[in-house]
């Protein structure tokens, strides 16, 4: 079971944490909502919780709670630029389909 960052994503995460001034890593998760059933969660981590699993990817701590990991196993987080817009993208092999905007998905 694992969740990884691309090197570019790791660089940006490290940069954002640096700019924010605190934080030990990044949390990836899912929550049930949105038009296709589930939505991704992408947050800074200040402290890990009891049921968290921590991965290391290119020197960045990636924190996923056990429940989310079921839906996220094998996911790679990338950082991309599309025109003037840039941000993180989940490449999730578990997602069967996602809504047009990509903000939510189902498995």
């Amino acid at each position: 079971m694992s969740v990884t960052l691309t090197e570019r994503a790791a660089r940006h995460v490290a940069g954002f944490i640096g700019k924010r001034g605190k934080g030990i890593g990044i949390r990836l998760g899912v929550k049930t909502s949105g038009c296709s059933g589930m939505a991704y969660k992408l947050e800074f981590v200040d402290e890990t919780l009891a049921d968290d699993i921590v991965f290391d990817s290119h020197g960045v701590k990636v924190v996923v709670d056990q429940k989310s990991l079921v839906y996220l196993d094998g996911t790679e987080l990338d950082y991309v630029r599309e025109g003037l817009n840039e941000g993180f993208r989940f490449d999730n092999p578990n997602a069967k389909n996602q809504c047009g905007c990509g903000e939510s998905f189902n498995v």
Partner: protein
Amino acid sequence: MALLQIAEPGMSAAPHERRLAIGIDLGTTHSLAATVKNSVAVCLADEEGRVLVPSVVHYRGDGGIEVGHAAVAAQPVDPRNTIVSVKRFMGRGLADVAHVETMPYVFEETPGMLRLRTVQGGKTPVEISAEILRALRARAEANLGGALAGAVITVPAYFDDAQRQATKDAARLAGLHVLRLLNEPTAAAVAYGLDNAAEGLYAVYDLGGGTFDLSILKLTRGVFEVLATNGNAALGGDDFDHRLYCWILDRARIAPPSATDTRRLQMKARAIKEQLTVSDEAPCQLRLDSGENVDLTVSREAFFEMTRPLVQKTLAPVRRALRDAGLAPQDIKGVVMVGGATRMPHVQRAVAGFFGQEPLTNLDPDRVVALGAAMQANALVGNRKAGDNDWLLLDVIPLSLGLETMGGLSEKIIPRNSTLPVARAQEFTTFKDGQTAMAFHVVQGERELVADCRSLARFELRGIPPMTAGAARIRVTFQVDADGLLSVAAREARTGVEASILVRPSYGLTDDEIAGMLRAGIERAGDDLAARALREQQVEAERALEATARALDADGGLLDAEEHARIAAAMEALRILIASGETARIAAGIAALARASEDFAARRMDRSIRAALAGHKIEEL
């Protein structure tokens, strides 16, 4: 697919919850847009990383339109079709604009607002401004990756209704939904978070490229009110450049330069001014086309000395604004600096000296207005979460809010154009004896009849103690908070029973609909008044019939058959008249019924007094 940003722990937005909104500073020389990303307001840059868009529009001969930097490049070549500082023309007729003769444009006078004749035909300032807004909108949508839910656009505090409306129209032409127009000084204060600060008085010192404005704001319960504005429409950073340019000409002892050399020297002067903000001296080396060499060093002291009169000149409007507001410099709790020219250290020092405190300068003075507008826009589209500080925003309600009263009439409680937040109360009473419940119908619109207004909500107040008609006192309070959220509460005075409801009055109404409703209100005012008068008579007639019928039930025994028949006939006649729809005849019918029952009423009165007095001695009363 959408790209995600990292959120603070526990703050991930639910999908589709975020609505894209921007703030736009539509300036005289520059315009820019900002948005709130991950709870931080940021300005939106173009592909080359430039945030400021010169407020310049170039209408090309081939039908193309250029905005911003591209248009600036066209200005020397095609001045007649390159419109700069269009903001000065917004909502203005030709007569209102000063120095028309010195401008390179061909003006056309049209009713209302002036037009500029370009190679692409006559263009109103609204259309020209719309081009700038369209460019900003395109930039924002490319940047944010989606359609915008709306925008907050800033306007100078002194803009009048016509100028504000023109700005709104320009936004609509550009396909932008205007969430709100916000005063520029207010936006700057919001950007500094002063709206969350303690209540008090604040000054906003705005020294732009070509204009100077000073506004005094009063913050009470999170709402900014503009107490006074003053300024100088012909004083700005450009004047500092010009002083320096003249100084260079003088010191370098060069002949009056050619047009190209003038332009190069002016740009050099500007660069030196900017450099002197950070360093103590700046070199001025330039080889002119004329073959002459300029080789000077400008010290900070020299620059400050030569421009000191300009700085002093800004303080005159400051004094005037304070005097208008009846304030002294020490009453001001904070000073916000806006406009690129406020970066100059001696400007900051002069302001600090005048107010006896350091001004707020840590935000980029070119961007602070747009940033505040973006924060406002973000709040207005509902992106802020519960628990965030509540935002109170100053605005007016576009249409009157009222209640339906008997006969389908609209009783206006809050007139249109009342500033928000606002609360008004009015007392109502029961229509029938023993009435224990009351239905309230909240309506919006300028028309007299409820049928012509827009229905907002209905609710009931129950548990009114039984009383005779007209005895109950029900206080109805209309309250519109700063977000335009209306709450209506009804409270019976004696028992304290209450009922209330929440509505969002402007929801779902487009500006066109509002305009249409206003127009109808004005055009139909005469009809409406007649209709209102009729309904009032009909209600009055029904009330009279109701009261007479009740009296006959209770005290019919006081009348002989003939008297009874006479009253019954008058009642019947009035019933027919109600349906006739003729106000005057109904009024006459009511009067006839009153005459017919006069005697009866007197007899009833005697009897009830006798009943009340029975068994009491005179002294007891």
